[in-house]
C-alpha cells in the first residue's frame, strides 16, 4: 500500500515527542523528522484514504495540542500531506528554514488560550427590560396576545433587544480586553458564536505571565458572577497568532 507523509506541525529540533500519540488515519506512529534547527511532526498516511472524519480531526488536534502543552508549536492546518519524508526535508523545512525558525522565536514560551463568556440570558434580558421603557411596553403588548397574531411584533421586540445585546457585548468585550491585555503578548477577538455569547477572545500568554493572567481571568469571573459565565480553554497551539510568512525565506 502506497503511503504519503502527513504533517501536523513544525517544532524546534530539540523537541521530544510525548509518548502514546495516536496518528491521523490509522498510521503506525507519530514521529519527528529533524532538519537544521527544526523538526516536522509527521506520520504515514495511506494515499487512497479520504480524510476528515471526526477521528481524524480529533487525532490531529490531540497531537498538536499535546505538543503545545510541552513546547512551542507551529500548527499546520488539518490535511497537509506531502509525497514522502524527503519532501518534508527538502521542500518544507529546508526551503522555509529561516521563516520557521523566526516564527518559533516570535512565539517562544507563549501559549494560546481562548476565553469564552456566556450570558445568563434571564439576567441579560431583565437588565435590558429595566433600562428600556419602549421594550417593556412592547413586551407587555405581546405577552397576552395570540403568538401567531403577534409574530412580527415579537420579531420587532427581539430585534430591539438584540440591538442592546450587541451594545452590551461590545462594552463587555472591551472591558475584558482592558483587564487581560496587560498579561498577554497579543489578543485577538473572535466572532461570538451564539446569541448568548458574551465574549470570545484568543490570548497569547507568555509562561512568565501565566499565573498573573489566570488570576486576572478569575478576577473577571468574580466581577461578572451571575452575569457572564467564563470558560478558559487551553493552553492550545497558537493558531490565532501565527506570524505571516512574508515572501520567500
Amino acid at each position: 500500500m502506497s503511503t504519503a507523509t502527513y504533517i501536523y506541525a513544525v517544532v524546534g529540533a530539540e523537541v521530544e515527542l510525548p509518548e502514546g500519540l495516536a496518528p491521523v488515519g490509522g498510521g503506525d506512529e507519530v514521529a519527528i523528522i529533524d532538519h537544521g534547527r527544526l523538526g516536522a511532526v509527521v506520520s504515514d498516511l495511506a494515499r487512497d484514504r479520504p480524510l476528515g472524519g471526526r477521528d481524524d480531526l480529533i487525532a490531529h488536534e490531540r497531537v498538536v495540542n499535546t505538543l503545545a502543552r510541552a513546547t512551542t508549536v507551529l500548527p499546520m492546518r488539518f490535511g497537509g500531506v506531502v509525497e514522502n519524508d524527503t519532501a518534508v526535508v527538502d521542500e518544507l523545512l529546508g526551503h522555509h528554514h529561516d521563516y520557521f525558525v523566526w516564527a518559533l522565536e516570535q512565539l517562544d514560551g507563549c501559549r494560546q488560550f481562548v476565553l469564552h463568556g456566556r450570558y445568563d440570558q434571564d439576567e441579560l434580558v431583565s437588565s435590558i427590560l429595566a433600562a428600556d421603557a419602549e421594550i417593556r411596553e412592547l413586551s407587555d403588548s405581546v405577552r397576552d396576545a395570540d403568538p401567531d397574531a403577534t409574530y412580527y411584533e415579537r420579531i420587532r421586540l427581539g430585534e430591539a433587544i438584540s440591538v442592546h445585546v450587541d451594545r452590551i457585548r461590545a462594552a463587555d468585550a472591551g472591558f475584558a480586553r482592558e483587564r487581560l491585555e496587560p498579561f498577554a503578548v497579543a489578543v485577538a477577538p473572535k466572532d461570538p458564536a451564539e446569541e448568548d455569547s458574551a465574549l470570545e477572545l484568543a490570548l497569547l500568554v507568555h509562561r512568565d505571565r501565566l499565573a498573573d493572567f489566570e488570576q486576572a481571568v478569575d478576577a473577571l469571573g468574580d466581577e461578572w458572577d451571575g452575569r457572564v459565565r467564563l470558560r478558559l480553554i487551553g493552553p492550545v497551539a497558537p493558531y490565532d497568532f501565527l506570524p505571516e510568512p512574508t515572501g520567500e525565506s
Partner: protein
Amino acid sequence: MTVSQRQGPSRVDRAPQGDLAQVIDLILDKGLVIDVFVKVSLVGIELVTIDARIVVASVDTYLRFAEATNRLDLHQKGGKDLGQVVGGLTEGVTQGGAKGKTKGMIEAGKEKFDDLRDERRSRKEREA
C-alpha cells in the same frame, strides 16, 4: 500591574480543549496552510470534513429573546396575580409549537453532536 490573591474557588471553568465544534473551527480554519510552503510534492488527499458548525438564523435569535421576556414576566409576576399567571401559562403551552419550530434546528444540531459523541465513545468501548 498585579492582581491581588483571590479567595475561594474560581468561578471560571477550565478545559484543555474546546468542544468538538471549537476544535474543528481551529484546525480547519487556522494553522499554516501546506500549499503555501510545498508546491512540488503536495499530495491531494480527499477531505470529507463534517460541517459541525451550527448556523443560527437571526430571526430565530430575535424570537428567542422575545420568549425570554415572556419567561421573565412569568417569574416576576408569579404569586402576584393569579389570573395573569394562569393566562401566561396557557400562553406558554400554546406557544410550545412555535417554540419547537424555532428551536428545532439548533436542537437537531445538538442531537447530531450527541450522536457523534456516543458513536465515538461506543467505538472506544468496543476496542477496549
